[in-house]
């Protein structure tokens, strides 16, 4: 009984939710809401991407059927119309103008000798004439000139053009010198962008909401004087923190469960790995976040001051924890900061379990990092409470 005093603090936090439905809603509905917003925004397939094609291809007079062949036409017909909205232009200048004034994302140019070069290559290969093969120094080049401001759109256009070329080459029985096959991934078969960022959103919202709520609650303990009252009872600083940590790690688990349910039911996200591991990560992140909230609360005398810490914790986490893009795309000089953010590990762990189906054997570095962060932050929180008693 005596050792379980901290449970009273945990219970108190849950009693609080019973009366303060708003906070409970914040903890449970806000993550869902944010996931819905991001999910709907990102899950839609790209469509109506306006591109303009300038086809200068002269074609090739086929010797046998005495017919003109334009391989560029096949390539264009193989382009995915679900995504690309294709217009044509007769001059490169007009096409460029269209990209410059924002009418089109990309200008795709087929040069005059597009078909010629391919045919020359093909016949040289067929003749097995080494000098003829060596003599070909002009390759067929499709130029894509894009508005690079929309990086993701552009890479999608590039991908679709390459895909159309590859298909055409295959249909025409041309030897495509380089063959890249990405159809059989090691992990994440069938994964889309949403599968990859949902763990990111989970980690971020759990962190943000737990830190916020515990910061506000604990500033309240100080301003209302209840912290002093607690300190004049047999409960120790460690037990107070433990009580808080337990409550918010339970909430962390609940948030993970809820978010995964939504992700699976609404967004059809696949979860390959062990759900229990995701709960574990959620609860550890809850613990890290609650102790960070308590640590920050010792710097704030009032709720309004607490708000001022917000940009300080939210922005770096949002940008550096790898929510939407992998750590590799973060500049190398900023990456050490990423490794100093606990959410980074939670997201990496969640992603590995959910998309890759990894187990403890693979994600132990993330679990270890989270354990270390949780221990350090919890001890830090206990220490600040003890120091405050000395200072006050």
């Amino acid at each position, binding site marked *: 009984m005596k050792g379980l005093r901290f449970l009273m603090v945990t219970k108190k936090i849950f009693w609080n939710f019973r009366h303060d439905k708003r906070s409970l809603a914040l903890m449970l509905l806000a993550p869902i809401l944010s996931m819905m917003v991001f999910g709907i925004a990102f899950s839609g397939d790209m469509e109506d991407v306006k591109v303009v094609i300038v086809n200068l291809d002269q074609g090739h007079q086929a010797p046998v059927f005495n017919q003109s062949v334009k391989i560029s036409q096949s390539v264009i017909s193989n382009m995915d119309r679900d995504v690309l909205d294709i217009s044509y232009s007769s001059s490169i200048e007009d096409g460029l103008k269209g990209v410059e004034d924002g009418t089109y994302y990309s200008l795709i140019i087929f040069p005059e000798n597009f078909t010629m070069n391919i045919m020359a290559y093909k016949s040289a290969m067929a003749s097995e004439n080494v000098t003829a093969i060596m003599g070909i120094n002009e390759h067929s080049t499709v130029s894509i000139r894009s508005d690079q401001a929309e990086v993701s759109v552009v890479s999608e256009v590039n991908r679709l053009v390459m895909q159309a070329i590859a298909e055409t080459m295959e249909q025409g029985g041309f030897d495509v010198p380089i063959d890249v096959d990405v159809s059989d991934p090691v992990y994440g078969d069938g994964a889309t962008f949403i599968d990859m960022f949902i763990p990111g959103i989970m980690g971020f919202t759990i962190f943000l909401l737990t830190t916020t709520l515990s910061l506000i609650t604990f500033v309240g303990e100080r301003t209302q*004087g*209840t912290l002093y*009252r607690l300190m004049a009872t047999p409960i120790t600083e460690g037990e107070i923190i433990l009580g808080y940590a337990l409550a918010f790690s339970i909430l962390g688990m609940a948030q993970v469960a809820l978010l995964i349910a939504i992700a699976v039911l609404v967004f059809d996200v696949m979860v390959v790995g062990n759900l229990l591991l995701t709960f574990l990560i959620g609860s550890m992140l809850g613990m890290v976040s609650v102790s960070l909230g308590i640590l920050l609360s010792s710097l704030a005398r009032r709720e309004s001051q607490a708000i001022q810490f917000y940009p300080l914790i939210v922005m770096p986490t949002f940008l550096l924890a790898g929510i939407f893009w992998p750590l590799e795309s973060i500049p190398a000089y900023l990456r050490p900061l990423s490794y100093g953010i606990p959410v980074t590990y939670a997201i990496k762990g969640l992603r590995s379990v959910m998309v890759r189906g990894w187990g403890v054997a693979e994600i132990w570095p993330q679990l270890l990092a989270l354990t270390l962060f949780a221990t350090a932050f919890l001890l830090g929180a206990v220490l600040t409470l003890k120091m405050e008693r*000395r200072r006050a």
Partner: protein
Amino acid sequence: MNGVEIRGLCKSYGKIKAVDGLDLTVGSGQVFGLLGPNGSGKTTTIKLLLGLIKPDSGDALVLGRPISKGIEFEKIGYMPQETALYEELTVHENLKLFGGIFGMKKRAFLGREEEVLRIVDLKGRRDSLLSELSGGQRHRISLAVALLHSPEIIFLDEPTVGVDPPLRVSFWKTFHDLKRKGVTIIMTTHYLDEARKCDNIGLMRSGKLISKGSPGRIMKDTGTDNLEDAFLKLASAGSPEVLT
């Protein structure tokens, strides 16, 4: 064993000497009243005795145990000057939280809960949220929490502020009942009619105790026939003289 023995206790906040070399003994089973103008160091003294703040120098015994060696909170009741309860919880939940922290078993707790709510005359509000109570009612719940675990010594920081006169009378009856059971009560107050009901009182000014004794003794020493005149006389005396 004395309830409290204070020896040369000092605590400064920057330049302000909130408690300045305090010496004081309160026998067990006494009702002791700590008086003094705003900012004279009454609350700071209580917080020092509860280990909520650490003294710069000096020490004190609470129930015979030095506060520097840790405090037996199980035996101590504390009613802070501010309400210091959870506004978003009900009266019952507030009591249950502290009962649980003091390790009370469910049965014992329910009995005591009824008892303390009777004392503060708020039995009917057990399931109200604290935030739905009036200021005086909240203050009364705060007293109920302090009494809940049947402590041996109780520190009450202005327990009767905002409490209506009939209830104040009943509070004093409770204090004297507790005293009869051997409970030591140390309270601060600004009301002189209450000071008169204490066994002993101490008058603080600028962190120092400038007078101490039974109300009768203080009136006699200052040659006055009421505490008001006695305090005015003591307060106007040039340098605070420490009476023992």
